[in-house]
């Protein structure tokens, strides 16, 4: 049971390093190495090993196009990294003696803070500082306060959702393992894998929704309405 919670492994200059941080570093190293190798050895005419990588990129790009709209290449670095990182960290929990880093609330909080600032970044990049403030105040000033509160509360809910799901599935596995040591925990671990992948998807879809609401242009919506009306009239 004690192994479920993150624990301190060693200290660097008096800063305690938990095992979750260590696993995150290992994963980051693996990803950087993979990205380097992929960039170096990928070809325009792909070989078989290149396909899974391209499938992941395609998945993220299609998700962005469905949720945010055009200019998928702007959001692909953030969204793709979130998908890959959360999915792989959640999968890490199935190996014995390795826990998934997302069972530490600090990891998920860091991810949610990244999303929090990314929303502002993309919003300001799309509308400019003044335009984005105006966008937050639509249709009147009272909504501005609600928007700000909403941005903090959804950071909290992103944090707690991922953390709660992962730690719940790991804790169930630990409890069953204490009660019945041999093999009984395997179906629950599969369930935990499924939960992890689903949570990676949900986290990313919600990030896309938040970015979409930040970059959404009210005037361009009117344009699409007009074009829809025009096409209806043609029919």
């Amino acid at each position, binding site marked *: 049971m004690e192994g479920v919670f993150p624990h301190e492994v060693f200290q660097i200059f008096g800063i305690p390093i938990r095992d979750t941080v260590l696993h995150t570093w290992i994963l980051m190293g693996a990803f950087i190495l993979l990205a380097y190798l992929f960039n170096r050895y990928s070809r325009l005419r792909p070989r078989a090993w290149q396909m899974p990588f391209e499938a992941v990129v395609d998945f993220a790009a299609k998700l962005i196009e469905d949720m945010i709209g055009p200019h998928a290449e702007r959001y692909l670095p953030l969204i793709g990294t979130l998908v890959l990182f959360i999915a792989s960290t959640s999968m890490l929990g199935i190996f014995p003696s390795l826990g998934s880093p997302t069972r530490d609330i600090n990891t998920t909080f860091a991810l949610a803070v990244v999303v929090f600032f990314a929303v502002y970044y993309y919003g300001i990049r799309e509308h400019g500082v003044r335009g984005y403030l105006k966008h937050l105040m639509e249709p009147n000033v009272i909504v501005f306060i609600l928007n700000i509160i909403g941005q903090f509360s959804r950071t909290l*809910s992103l944090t*707690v959702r991922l953390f*709660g*799901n992962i730690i*719940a599935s790991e804790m169930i596995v630990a409890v069953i393992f204490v009660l019945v040591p041999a093999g009984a925990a395997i179906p629950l671990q599969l369930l935990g894998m499924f939960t992890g992948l*689903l949570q990676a998807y949900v986290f990313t*879809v*919600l990030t896309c929704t938040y970015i979409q609401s930040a970059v959404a242009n009210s005037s361009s919506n009117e344009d699409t309405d007009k074009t829809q009306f025009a096409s209806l009239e043609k029919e």
Partner: protein
Amino acid sequence: MESNVLLVVVMSVAPLVAITLGCILPALVEGKAVLKALEAMARQPEVADEIRTTLIVSLAMLETTAIYVLLVCLILLFANPLLALLAT
């Protein structure tokens, strides 16, 4: 001494009650949401993909309430601030 025992009993029963209610209600509501989504998908299979995305997002939102309850229960069980009162 008596009051300490009472406090421990209350603090171990309270998470049980909370997690029971906090699982039943979101489960019922999520079932309702899935039911409606499936009905809509059966009626209009051509928009099934859009419905599925919206369904997953809204299920995540509903799930959050249950997760909040879980978080409160975890705090009560493992990191209870009231236990400091018990020690003094």
